[in-house]
């Protein structure tokens, strides 16, 4: 029944490590997103994919690399983790790209803590 799922829910790791977060949606949506929510709860878009194609790439360090093997999955790989990467990362999806009326459906978030 889960619409947008993310794994893992919690991730604690050392500085310098490489980690991945996975996202899957079973809504049949074409567009998926990654957001970062920092300690002040500010929500910023990082990436957006439409049908496996990257369409939005905000100013994000190139240590972050999204990968979309198919339109139902959007994974986020982070290289050389830094303390400032500690945040909650949300995956979301929406029906179509050029449809401003579309609601985004969010996953439960992955809380990343870099030590």
């Amino acid at each position, binding site marked *: 029944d889960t619409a947008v799922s993310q794994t893992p829910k919690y991730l604690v790791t050392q500085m310098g490590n490489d980690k991945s977060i996975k996202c899957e949606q079973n809504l049949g949506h074409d*567009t998926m*997103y990654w*957001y970062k929510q920092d300690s*002040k*709860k*500010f*929500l*910023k*878009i990082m990436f*957006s994919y*439409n049908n496996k194609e990257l*369409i*939005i790439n905000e100013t994000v360090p190139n240590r972050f690399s999204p990968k979309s093997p198919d339109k139902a999955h959007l994974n986020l790989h982070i290289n050389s983790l830094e303390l400032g990467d500690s945040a*909650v990362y*949300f995956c*979301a999806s929406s029906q179509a*790209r*050029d*449809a*401003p*009326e*579309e*609601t*985004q459906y*969010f*996953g*439960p*978030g992955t809380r990343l803590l870099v030590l």
Partner: protein
Amino acid sequence: AQTVTQSQPEMSVQEAETVTLSCTYDTSESNYYLFWYKQPPSRQMILVIRQEAYKQQNATENRFSVNFQKAAKSFSLKISDSQLGDTAMYFCAVNTNAGKSTFGDGTTLTVKP
């Protein structure tokens, strides 16, 4: 560039009372939608209400309604008969045809018994 401003970082309201959360935005697009999302302490973000920019009539969903002032680029959320379950962080967002969503910085609402 698209911006969304929520000027109230925190608000509180007594149970059963009414509260209004403010939001102003700026976009150069002519076709856009405005959203209010709710993020309860359990963290998952869910839609509260949305408004099409072309519609003058304010959207309403049960106890939630908006006051959309297009000329002023204002989109406030009114919660009537506040309930304890309304305690959450509320985000205002604007979506445009370019497929871009911009979120405000959020307002933390606490409903007090």
